[in-house]
């Protein structure tokens, strides 16, 4: 699969994700309207004229609210999302008189040339752990973040490989996909929280129908409570997929899979968590900032709950790539 097919696939995936989340929001909002705004089975049984008229003029407050909340969050992220990330990680701009930071700037420029895209803006996260991530909405306006620990521990070639990985996230449009997913996870979280809160307030005061209606309500409220987890699992599944491709993309840019192997080995050895990077943007990073050992395990549960594939598998895939490359001629 070449880069153009990659990009196309990602753009399609972005639309699909948007669609799934819209269904999600409609499910949450419509359910709210159905169960809380007199739009219940009980009112149909009561066949007085006024009750009927009230139902006809039914206004989907919950649905509109959930769509508006997500739209506002997306617009907000578009306008000052990057500032939010910068302030939440307390990132700073590199100082070009420091030789290591100058090297970082140079390496980013080299990789941008190799990928044929404009140079992303660079930031340094003051944290001793080894980590890096990229974000933004398009290759024309993108951002690369690395931790101080990463700059200190990696040599030039390894840094180049890591930046190549991030640059591949940028050129494959992974950044747009993942940024959108981050926002939507937040939106689902906020909405489901609001519903759960309001249900606590009103549930005792209202009779919500019996039999089938009650069961549907229970299923719906379980969905509401689970929705933040489900949306996060969705994000993780997408994120894991993209990591292998970004690794391969890095090798394609640097033509040096060995450098990424040794960089990943170093990152793997530094197991302490990246404290400056919050969990909510964990799936953007080159390795899970939680620093937990879940990345090391394989199997069903870690396959579902990890944001990244196991390091071992990533390294093995790269070793195969290096081996094939070196034995081609």
């Amino acid at each position, binding site marked *: 699969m070449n880069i153009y097919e990659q990009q196309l696939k990602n753009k399609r995936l972005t639309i699909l994700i948007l669609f799934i989340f819209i269904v999600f929001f409609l499910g949450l909002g419509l359910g709210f309207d159905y169960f809380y705004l007199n739009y219940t089975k009980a009112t149909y049984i009561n066949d007085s004229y006024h009750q009927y008229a009230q139902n006809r003029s039914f206004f989907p407050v919950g649905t509109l609210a959930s769509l508006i909340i997500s739209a506002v969050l997306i617009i907000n992220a578009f306008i000052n999302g990057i500032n939010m990330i910068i302030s939440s990680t307390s990132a700073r701009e590199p100082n070009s008189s420091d*030789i290591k930071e*100058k*090297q970082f700037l*140079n*390496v980013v*420029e*080299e*990789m941008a*040339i*190799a*990928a*044929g895209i404009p140079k992303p803006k660079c930031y340094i996260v003051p944290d001793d752990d080894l980590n890096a991530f990229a974000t933004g909405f398009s290759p024309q306006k993108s951002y690369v973040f690395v931790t101080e620990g990463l700059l200190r521990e990696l040599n*030039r070639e390894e840094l*180049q490989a890591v930046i190549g990985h991030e640059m591949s996230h940028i050129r494959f449009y992974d950044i747009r996909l993942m940024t959108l997913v981050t926002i939507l996870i937040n939106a689902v979280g906020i909405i489901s929280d609001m519903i759960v809160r309001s249900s606590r307030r009103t549930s005792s005061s209202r009779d919500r129908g019996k039999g089938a209606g009650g069961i549907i309500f229970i299923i719906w409220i379980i969905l509401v409570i689970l929705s933040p987890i489900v949306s996060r699992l969705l994000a993780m599944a997408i994120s894991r997929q993209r990591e292998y491709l970004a690794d391969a993309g890095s090798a394609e*840019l640097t*033509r*040096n899979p060995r450098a990424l192997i040794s960089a990943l080995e170093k990152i793997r050895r530094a197991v302490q968590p990246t404290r400056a990077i919050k969990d909510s943007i964990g799936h953007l990073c080159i390795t899970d900032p939680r620093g937990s050992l879940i990345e090391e395990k394989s199997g069903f549960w870690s396959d579902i709950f990890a944001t990244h594939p196991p390091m071992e598998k990533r390294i*093995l895939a790269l*070793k*195969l790539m*290096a*081996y094939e490359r*070196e*034995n*081609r*001629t």
Partner: protein
Amino acid sequence: MIIISIIVAVLILWVILSFNKLISLRNQVKNAFAQIDVQLKRRHDLIPNLVDSVKGAMKFEQETLTKVMEARAKAINAFQSGNIKEGFQNENIITQALGRLFALRESYPELKSNQQVSELMEELTATENKISFARQFYNDITTKYNIAIEIFPTNILAKIMSFIPFDLFELPKDSPEKEAPKVNLSI
């Protein structure tokens, strides 16, 4: 009648789309070439500084240093007089000689600890990398363009609109692309 007009419409659409695709590819090729040019000029600017600052310490490398300066002068001259081929030949000489200087730097401790030399070396390493990555990108995008104007049916359009293929860069001998294969059985 309707069928004919549909066929004509589809044809016109195809011509517009393929033409735009070719134009955008050709512009990418030109941009990639311009990028190489920018980086080569940057290297020309950096070399005299480097030579001045290491001349004193690298006593046994005077020959290499002279060679770099000569190749630089020749390359600049060749590009100015429009002799592209000779220019790139000299650029390859510079690349090789600089590679040698970088490798030898390790054996001169006074250079390793010199902040100014370190900064210059970093700048030159970055420029070297940018040159080779710009070439790599140029070759990739040019290959794409060359294929696009040769495959059927776009080749008909390319011929009429006189799109000509561009040459690829020959990689210098010491580039990683031509490195001797290493056998590693660690997996």
